[in-house]
């Protein structure tokens, strides 16, 4: 259908294209949401708190980082700073996508609440062929958002019945998940230097000074290492 007349873009076709593109992403994100909810519940968050965090923050990486270092009462400034560091990539993603979306300023301000790695990547791919319309963007956004909020809420409800996460190795699921996410950034020399520097500094700071200082110090060490390891004249 979509291929039949590539020059005509109707809302109906854009919605169909959005659903087709986002479906595999939503399926893959479902168990991750369940996992997030279950571990958050095991760390002492209520089901309502888990639901609110997923619905309002809607950023998996930042939420997993927050839960991994979760203590009670919540360290507000530390969490906000870690969130800023992890989500800073959104600035570049938004800057790159903005000339390619066919939406008004106000629509875009609403649309970008739903900006995720996945929706961004799919939209950049679609933008190679045609502009990204509001119909395409919002159908993807709403599916992913509802999927994440619901799956993490259900995970929180189920997780409160599971008991101690150590018993089934679930406490290590975060570590494994993060290792998987880091692998997605590739094996370039700069990335390896970044990972090694960040890991070494974070582990040392955690051992000698303690949480939560290891997050910011390790991250800054990794970023500085990338700056120094990168060739000075590299083209983007």
């Amino acid at each position, binding site marked *: 259908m979509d291929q039949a007349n590539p020059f005509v873009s109707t809302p109906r076709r854009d919605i169909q294209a959005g659903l087709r593109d986002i479906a595999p992403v939503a399926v893959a994100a479902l168990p991750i949401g369940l996992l997030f909810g279950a571990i958050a519940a095991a760390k002492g968050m209520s089901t309502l708190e888990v639901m609110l*965090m997923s619905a309002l923050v809607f950023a998996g990486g930042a939420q997993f980082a927050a839960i991994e*270092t979760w203590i009670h009462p919540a360290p*507000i400034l530390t969490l906000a700073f870690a*969130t800023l560091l992890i989500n800073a990539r959104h600035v570049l993603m938004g800057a790159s996508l903005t000339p390619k979306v066919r939406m008004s300023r106000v629509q875009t301000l609403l649309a970008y609440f739903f900006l995720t790695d996945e929706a961004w990547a799919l939209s950049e791919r679609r933008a190679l062929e045609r502009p990204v319309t509001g119909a395409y963007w919002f159908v993807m956004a709403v599916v992913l958002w509802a999927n994440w909020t619901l799956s993490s809420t259900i995970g929180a409800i189920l997780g409160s019945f599971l008991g101690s996460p150590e018993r089934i190795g679930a406490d290590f699921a975060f570590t494994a998940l993060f290792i998987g996410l880091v692998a997605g950034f590739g094996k370039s020399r700069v990335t390896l230097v970044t990972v090694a520097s960040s890991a070494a500094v974070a582990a040392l700071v955690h051992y000698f000074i303690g949480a939560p200082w290891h*997050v910011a110090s390790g991250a800054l060490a990794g970023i500085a290492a990338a700056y120094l390891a990168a060739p000075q004249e590299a083209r983007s």
Partner: protein
Amino acid sequence: MSLDTTTLIAILAMALVTYFTRIAGLFVADRLVLTGRAKAAFDAIPPAVLVAVIAPTALTTGWAEAIAAAITAVAAFRLPLLGTVAVGVIAVVVLRNLI
């Protein structure tokens, strides 16, 4: 269902910061062109933060966790995300029972 005030403020702070990063690109779309070392440093932010969060668990908790982390890293370059998580969790359960 309970809602702790400090937790609610933390969630709202995280939400505000996240929304700020999401819309900031809209206002710098014409000006933000990073190249060379600055771009490398910016691109390094996500892996640097992710690694910093897990480094204490992976490296200084014990041998079971450290070896399981190494096994997970090998799996991460060959399996999809969920498969990697499964390998890591199974590895740590087995190693904790052995060591």
